[in-house]
């Protein structure tokens, strides 16, 4: 299941941080909503924060993942 897989990848990339991965409401399965709350975002712009998340999902974006809605928060 793509949701579990992505959750697993993000958990490894952001150890100990709060991660939410779920389906995007009203969209198909390849549209996911991701929320990551991490202290690693501190001092970074939104662009860099989102890039950090998406970098971990590079392989998934090539394959099954079509679109994500990303929200990053500094913890």
């Amino acid at each position: 299941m793509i949701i579990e897989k992505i959750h697993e990848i993000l958990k490894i990339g952001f150890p100990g941080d709060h991660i939410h991965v779920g389906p995007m409401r009203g969209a198909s399965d390849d549209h996911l909503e991701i929320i990551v709350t991490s202290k690693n975002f501190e001092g970074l712009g939104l662009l860099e924060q989102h890039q950090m998340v998406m970098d971990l999902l590079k392989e998934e974006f090539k394959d099954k993942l079509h679109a994500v809605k990303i929200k990053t928060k500094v913890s």
Partner: protein
Amino acid sequence: MSENPFNIVNPNVSEERVEKASSEIPTGFDETDTVKRIEKIISSHSVIVFMKGNAFFPQCGFSANTIAMLGQVKADFKTYDILQDPELRMAIKDYSNWPTFPQVYHNSKLLGGNDILTELYQNGELAKMFS
């Protein structure tokens, strides 16, 4: 509003305004090297949206939402339809280290995709940028 997965700001944004604000850059441009082509497109427009479809017929909810927000803040933007240009579509993901569309560039720098634009729109920074 919450039923809408894309949080479309105002799908009924005046078409006239979008029409005035945007026009599509012809695909291909006049450069054969894809990276050079990207650089040329980005540097010759202050705001450029690489998207699926164009401002009148966006082919994806994220792209539609981004266009609507830029229209609302009266940004003067151009669009580039990546569906018509598979080579550029692949190359720009590496160029910007950004795997999804739309991609909005402002003054030759990647501003972000729909999520970032949405945050900037909601906290008022997008409007400030184009006031």
